[in-house]
């Protein structure tokens, strides 16, 4: 296992009597997409503000790319990129002028800026928007521009706080393609969202409630723990299911069969379960798999938390 790029221990923030973040422990592996989820007011934005060195914690430790963020908040600035729901662009300036202004802040200029911005402009499809006033950009373009600015200086970690709120379905898909490309190139992405299906584009999901971590696992593991599991409808030729029964059983499936069709379920769709289903299709069965929605996982988690 590689060393984490973000390691958080005992992170706590109190505002007077109110504890916004309560002894949070997180570790984020480099090059992964980390979904940081929680209800409104659960402490997500407060946590991010501490992680990027804008807010001093009451207690705890934060290490980011080898830097102690609490002792040296300024040293993390050139290692991270940040964008929020409200992308900060100067409305009266064109996108190009915003880029030049921002590049100046991170010490990027001349041929190096042209090369970097030229590549981003191409990949993020911002060519048509370059001369537009930032205030006139449609929501989807504005969010892409925000992401381009946040990555201009080659940060090691990207913090994205509800980057797709208010963005239409097409632009959300485009935006997530870009995020996955960044991660594939080695950038670590720390992202919050209320579109819970987006957590399925992530490698890891942490849920917080009232400032405390209540779940912290890969999406598939969260499904296993907090959902009724995968449901599989199988149309089988005669004898098909009987031939595969022992393989299905050892892969963790339970089922109910009626003439010609069977309803299978499994808490998780691991390699063994997939292999057992593959054997069914090889024997001529048609398989239809329903994956539990992460929104339902979240509902279940919150319900369990409120009962406890």
């Amino acid at each position, binding site marked *: 296992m590689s060393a984490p790029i973000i390691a958080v221990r005992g992170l706590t923030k109190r505002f007077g009597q109110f504890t916004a973040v309560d002894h949070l422990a997180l570790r984020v592996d480099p090059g992964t997409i980390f979904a940081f989820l929680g209800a409104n007011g659960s402490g997500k934005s407060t946590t991010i503000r501490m992680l990027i060195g804008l807010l001093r914690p009451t207690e705890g430790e934060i290490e980011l790319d080898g830097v102690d963020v609490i002792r040296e908040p300024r040293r993390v600035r050139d290692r991270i990129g940040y964008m929020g729901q409200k992308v900060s662009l100067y409305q009266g300036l064109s996108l190009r002028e915003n880029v030049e202004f921002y590049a100046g802040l991170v010490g990027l200029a001349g041929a190096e800026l042209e090369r970097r911005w030229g590549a981003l402009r191409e990949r993020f499809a911002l060519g048509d928007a370059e001369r537009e006033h930032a205030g006139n950009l449609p929501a989807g373009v504005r969010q892409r521009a925000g992401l381009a600015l946040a990555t201009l200086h080659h940060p090691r970690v990207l913090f994205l706080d509800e980057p797709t709120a208010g963005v239409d379905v097409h632009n959300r898909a485009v935006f997530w393609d870009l995020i996955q490309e960044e991660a594939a190139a080695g950038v670590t992405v720390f992202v919050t969202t209320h579109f819970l299906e987006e957590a*399925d584009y992530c490698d890891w999901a942490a849920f917080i409630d009232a400032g405390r971590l209540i779940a912290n696992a890969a999406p598939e593991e969260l499904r296993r723990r907090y959902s009724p599991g995968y449901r599989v409808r199988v149309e089988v030729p005669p004898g098909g299911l009987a031939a595969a029964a022992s393989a299905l059983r050892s892969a963790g499936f339970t089922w109910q069969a009626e003439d010609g069709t069977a309803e299978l379920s499994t808490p998780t769709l691991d390699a063994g379960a997939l292999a057992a*289903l593959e054997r069914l299709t090889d024997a001529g069965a048609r398989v*239809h798999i329903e*994956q539990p929605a992460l*929104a339902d996982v979240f509902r279940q988690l*919150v319900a369990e938390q409120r009962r406890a």
Partner: protein
Amino acid sequence: MIDVPPTIALRGLRKRFGERVALDGVDLMLGGAQLVGVVGPDGAGKTTLLRALAGLLEVEAEEARVLGYDLRGDVRELKREVGYVPQAFSLPRDLSVIENLRFTARLHQIDTHELERRAAELLQRTGLAPFTDRPAGALSGGMKQKLALSCALLPDPALLLLDEPTAGVDVVARDEIWAMLHARRGATLILISTSYLDEVASCERLLYLDAGRVVALGTPEELRTRVALELYRAWGDDPRAIARAARALPYVDDARAVGRFARIEVHRARTPGAAHVLRDLAALPADVRVAERAPVDMEATLLELARGPNP
């Protein structure tokens, strides 16, 4: 039989902001008590249409009647009869939850007894009951939206217009907001714009706008069956690798990893047929264990409508 005029009757509704045409000839007849989702890409005119229907904009049209009032004339009475929740939270922030409800009641001349009864029910349903004395400005995003909806519902409006009331709201608070809307089902015509696919799917009808015009109006099922797309799922241990490999197939429009599967879109104009696609998916240079044809989902429906009729 009594001929009931439709709640909303628009012909050629136009709205310009300077050079920009926001609504470019909207034709729309809507009546009855139904829950209608207003959907479409960013900048399609959703917010402008809802604001126009609330009587907040000067518009041009051949016909523009809402609840019997002409949008081109005096709309003061219309504004009293419509419940409208704008995109940005607009209630007085220094008034508490209960003060906001009282303030709304006074504007609509609801008597104290009636206010107490309705407010108690709304506070109960929204889970705002423990927070009645909290200033609106100090509520969380989800609670703010529930209060805004409560104030809109308090006068028992004949038409409810909601502009992205759940943007930035968590799933549990969204469920509570939708429970309030479902409770009004059969009582009020509700128009709601939203970007959440599960909310779009639970509307009774969808009004799809693009470039300031109505492109489609129908049930989610009608729109779903109308789009010329096929959807496939390829399950395996590395769905991202499967999606990458699937994109290399000449007829695949889009492929993306979603949890344990790769979701693959193929346009009907280009498909070599389901059997062929499934064979190709099974033979991809990525470990596909199970490939299946899936029903077209809401995401594919909206994406395809956004692409327009010419692929």
